[in-house]
């Protein structure tokens, strides 16, 4: 009877230990968000390769430059008519 009690006590102690094991785990969340990129309208700082029709740092002029470039370079209907 006494040995049965011991076994039961041991089993319950093990259960408590097992259920508390997770409390010691280190957090496994991702370390953080990936590095963010600088906005393209801030330019590359290399003037030789940069088109001259927009102002570095000006988002609107950059967007307009891309729109103009898309129309001129890719819209052959507007170029031929």
């Amino acid at each position: 009877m006494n040995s049965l009690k011991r076994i039961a006590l041991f089993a319950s102690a093990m259960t408590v230990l097992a259920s508390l094991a997770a409390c010691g785990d280190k957090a496994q969340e991702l370390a953080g968000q990936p590095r963010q990129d600088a906005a393209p309208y801030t330019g590359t700082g290399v003037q030789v390769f940069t088109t001259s029709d927009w102002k570095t740092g000006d988002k609107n002029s950059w967007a307009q430059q891309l729109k103009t470039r898309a129309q001129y370079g890719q819209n052959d209907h507007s170029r031929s008519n």
Partner: protein
Amino acid sequence: MARMKFICDAERCIECNGCVTACKNEHEVPWGVNRRRVVTLNDGVPGEKSISVACMHCSDAPCMAVCPVNCFYRTEEGVVLHDKDVCIGCGYCSYACPFGAPQFPSAGTFGVRGKMDKCTFCAGGPEANGSQAEFEKYGRNRLAEGKLPACAEMCSTKALLAGDGDVVADIFRNRVVQRGKGAEVWGWGTAYGSKADSKGAKS
């Protein structure tokens, strides 16, 4: 600024692979990696269609959803980019992508699968814009130079369009309306003869 998008006009693509070559040259993409490919349906059969395919910079990108190390990010212009310093080359993005965009260079000493490489919409990566580090990892950053992706700008038939989604959609819509369909298409009569010509030939 709307979102940056690619559209490929299957009626115009002639499978010249100029876009593939332009991309490889512009970014010095390693051997065995193709950020852009031309896919042909019914190859060799009259009426075959080709389209140029790369990363479509999805609005709800599956690669971003499955990446276990969260290396992907989306720029304000809607371009999906990734950080090669964080990528572990597991290949989950490759399984998730419906376009087969993620590529894995196998040029390592032991032929191991390297860090994932894909189309950047010529927008570089998280390194400083225009830096040597950015070029070596991700290629040229043409967007920051005020230019559009090299593949589209190089396309000889202007089948591949790239840029602000609203602009390229307008160009494509206008093109489709103007060219019509079937016998209305420019060159149809030269290729197949007009009705009047065929009647004349019979009589």
